[in-house]
């Protein structure tokens, strides 16, 4: 209920609560080259506390690379990422920026849950151990505490009954839900979803989107790369359309998806509708 109320407030831009206007993630002039290929060309975006931003666009437009640059799975070629005012992956020394240590970057990544297109669960650990690994071995909780937390997170994604299984025994949709629980267990400030349903059989997409929708309703901040346009419209506060490494158009879902103004957006959405 509370969650729904918040979404309503966000949509209408009342901005009653201070926290809802607060900027959580800022992307500043982000560039990424792979050799001579410019995948991201000067991207700037801002994500507010409790906001859900959907990145859409044709394949090869740089959505996934953008998401991977946010938690420095890819090091940006230029530009900067700030989470809660904290400069990610770099430190400022005078006027220069230097790469921060692996330990510091690792600590910063704790604040950003990441859900992979291909799940990447660890096959040598049970479902519960997969989820408990971060609180246990990274955050230093006791094994019992970590396993209890993992069970609670699995409960949230409706996977607690499979906690003793190994990932290989699960369907794709179930694996992805465990992947989401794993991200939740690190108690992140924001969750980054990289096409979470693109590797799934069509009949399994719904269960994963359902879980993401429940999390959105809790007022969690998230950035979601997706091809599920209808889902993006239902869940997102802001839709960002990317093409050719640039943000072409962004705004409320009703504007971008239902009344796109840019020609490229219109063409892309037209292709999706067939």
């Amino acid at each position, binding site marked *: 209920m509370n969650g729904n109320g918040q979404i309503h407030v966000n949509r209408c831009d009342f901005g009653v609560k201070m926290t809802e206007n607060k900027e959580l993630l800022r992307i500043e002039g982000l560039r990424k080259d792979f050799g001579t290929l410019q995948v991201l060309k000067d991207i700037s975006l801002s994500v507010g506390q409790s906001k859900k931003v959907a990145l859409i666009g044709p394949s090869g437009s740089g959505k996934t690379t953008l998401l991977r640059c946010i938690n420095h*799975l890819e090091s940006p070629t230029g530009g900067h990422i700030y989470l809660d005012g904290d400069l990610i992956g770099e430190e400022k020394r005078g006027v220069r920026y230097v790469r921060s240590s692996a330990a510091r970057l690792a600590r910063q990544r704790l604040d950003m849950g990441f859900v992979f297109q*291909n799940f990447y669960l660890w096959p040598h650990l049970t479902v519960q151990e997969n989820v408990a690994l971060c609180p246990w071995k990274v955050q230093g909780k006791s094994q019992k505490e970590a396993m209890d937390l993992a069970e609670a997170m699995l409960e949230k994604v409706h996977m607690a009954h499979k906690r003793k299984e190994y990932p290989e025994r699960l369907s794709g949709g179930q694996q992805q839900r465990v992947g989401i629980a794993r991200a939740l267990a690190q108690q992140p400030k924001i969750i980054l979803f990289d096409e979470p349903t693109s590797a799934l059989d069509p009949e399994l997409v719904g269960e994963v989107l359902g879980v993401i929708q429940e999390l959105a309703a809790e007022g969690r901040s998230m950035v979601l790369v997706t091809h599920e346009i209808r889902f993006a419209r239902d869940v997102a506060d802001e839709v960002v359309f990317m093409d050719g490494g640039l943000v072409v158009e962004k705004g409320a879902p009703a504007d971008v998806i239902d009344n796109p103004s840019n020609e490229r957006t219109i063409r892309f959405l037209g292709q999706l509708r067939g």
Partner: protein
Amino acid sequence: MEQFGDLFTRSASHLEVLLQGAGVTVMITLGSFVMAVTIGLVLAVARTWKIRPLNALIAIYVEVFRGLPTLTLLFICYFGLTYVGIKLNPLPAAIIGLGLSGGAYCTEIFRSGISALHHGQREAAAAIGMTPMRAMRFVILPQALRITLPPLGNYAIGLIKDTAVASAVAAPEILFRARNLSTETFDTALIYLLVAVLYLVMTFPLARWVDHLEKKRKAWQ
């Protein structure tokens, strides 16, 4: 009958000597195996740090020690080092020689195990805030070691047989004792038959275990 009785007593008396040799063979095998696996594990992990000069040194080590006949290496350890004032006993010389060449093999075995894992495994570990060291310990190595068990087992089987070269530096293992016995008794055929049986007793169970692991691994994948 009398002939067979004689065969039995001769075998028993030979075996008494050969079994002592087998003990030394086991010692050399275990010692050099532990050394090789330690070297291999450390170097394979160190390679993933991608420090260029270090990787160059590791590559040189692997190429040199993989390319040298073990016997040559053993002679260098045993005779060669005396020129720089290091006098090794036959047993440590054999263990170090076999351990160094085995280390080169094990580095390659572990490297292939580590690189066989999908990069997503490492990324998922990084995403939950693991440093590369932690990811190595809790995510990469546990999986890589499982992959490398069968090739490690095969290496161990080869190692048991390779310890025979230690007889060349007078380490008192099976083959060395066998040669001495046969010059004393001229009972050459029987002695080497017994030697063969002793080696098989050591290698056969290990080979069965490796087969078992490989079957299990196929089921796991």
